[in-house]
């Protein structure tokens, strides 16, 4: 794979479209086991991201990721703002001065995952977006060639898996056992992120 500057911007535009389309759905998921704002938060954030990207000239993927990070950090709030913000900041750093091929990207998402875990004091198996990022990182590190459909499958299996987990981090943790059987909203929005990426890679292929 190779993520061009244009790809990275397309990625964010597609992501924003998915988030706006699924704003209500994400909010509904968050109402069930959280406070019902995840869709609103993500929609506000990615709406700002695409506005920002549309009026700025970029030189590199790293610069795009940096503005995405700063915009999410400053516009989302809640738990998801710092987490997505940190993720993109780490990806920006890891891709600085580089062409974003699969190896660079694998390192970037891995750094992002470590950043998320550190910020959130969280790890795998706690019913958070970490449970989608972790297998996706693994996918980029292990696969010889990134097949878009395989990426989507990997992320979507991870989301489904999140249903069966009992939450121990984030607001859903307050529900304890009652969180089992529900999808984690942050995992679903992370799924959209990787699904969007797959669609960009598909087009590029």
């Amino acid at each position, binding site marked *: 794979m190779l993520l061009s500057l244009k790809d990275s911007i397309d990625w964010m535009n597609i992501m924003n479209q998915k988030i706006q389309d699924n704003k209500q759905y994400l*909010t509904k998921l968050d*109402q*069930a*086991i*959280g*406070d*019902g*704002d995840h*869709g*609103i*938060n993500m929609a*506000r954030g990615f709406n700002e991201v695409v506005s920002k990207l549309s009026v700025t000239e970029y030189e590199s993927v790293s610069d795009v990721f940096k503005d995405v990070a700063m915009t999410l*950090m*400053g*516009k*989302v*709030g*809640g*738990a*998801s*703002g*710092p*987490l997505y913000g940190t993720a993109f900041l780490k990806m920006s750093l890891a891709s600085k001065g580089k062409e974003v091929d699969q190896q660079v990207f694998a390192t970037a998402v891995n750094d992002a995952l470590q950043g998320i875990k550190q*910020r*959130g004091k969280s790890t795998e198996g706690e019913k958070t977006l970490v449970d989608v990022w972790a297998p996706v990182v693994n996918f980029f590190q292990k696969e010889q060639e990134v097949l878009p459909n395989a990426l989507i499958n990997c992320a979507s299996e991870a989301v489904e898996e999140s249903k069966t987990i009992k939450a*121990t*981090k*984030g*607001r859903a*943790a*307050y*529900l*304890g056992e*009652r969180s089992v059987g529900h999808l984690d909203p942050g995992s679903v929005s992370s799924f959209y992120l990787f699904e969007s990426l797959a669609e960009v890679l598909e087009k590029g292929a």
Partner: protein
Amino acid sequence: MKKIINDPNQVVQDMIRGMVAAYPSSLKQVPNATVLARKDAPVANKVALISGGGSGHEPAHAGFVGKGMLDAAVLGEVFTSPTPDQVYEAIKAVDSGKGVFLIIKNYTGDVMNFEMAAELAEAEGIQVEAVVVNDDVAVEDSSFTTGRRGIAGTVFVHKIVGAKAEEGASLVELKAIANKVNSNVRSMGMALSPCTVPAAGSPSFELEENEMEIGIGIHGEPGIERKAIASADDIAEEITNKILEDIDYSNEEVAVMVNGLGSTPEMELYIVNAKVHQLLQEKGIKVYKTFVGEYMTSLEMAGCSVTLLKLDDELKGLLDAKSEASAFRI
């Protein structure tokens, strides 16, 4: 959704204008930030106190800004922690050089956003300390989970740390007193009905006519248990006992707060208060002071929480100290 609002996405901005209009001589908005600060901030030679979080908990937190309590409140979107840059704006606006103390409720989002702001401030040479309040006994306390939530007990932290800061205490002293309050305060809540985040447009959950949620938080999230609605006495008893099981208040003096979550008539809060006092009396726990009303709400949720704070002479003095905050006048 029936609300007296203009644009669901502008409720926080509109509210801020309404608050500044109401108290122009004591409150100001920090320019271009969703931050309300004491008009006279930064106050020379005083450590500044900042709290905040998502909106929808009014009068928390901006109602507690004022001489004797907070120097600033940072207002996030409804039920959404404010972003680090907003918290950082608040820090810069109120720091007098003696440092800034953050009172954070224990939610992942609040903790992360406030921590990131503290990092930004420290990078600029501003001293920052913080307490993370976690008074909700409904939630299992475990180092492997998110831990307990911060709910209405946070208001006692604002009050007592605020009084101490007004006396000229240092950051270190404030951290100590904040930890002391936090380790002596316990709360638990229940709800009869959900609430609706304006931008979401639909209620957070549904409850049948004969159901209630016990162990509810303050963000329209479901509680720890759903069951048949009980009498005020039974509700008061369940909550009070849960708190008393958690820490030993016997032969102690306490402050009591019976807090309305939004749409519960004050009449019902006093009915709950009657039973709480009776239970405490039976157990030999003396009530020093009682607060009944809306302090930490969850939009228009129907329900209440009970908070008990164990007091010693130091805490009593600080609790009784003058406060000029619009929603907490003593």
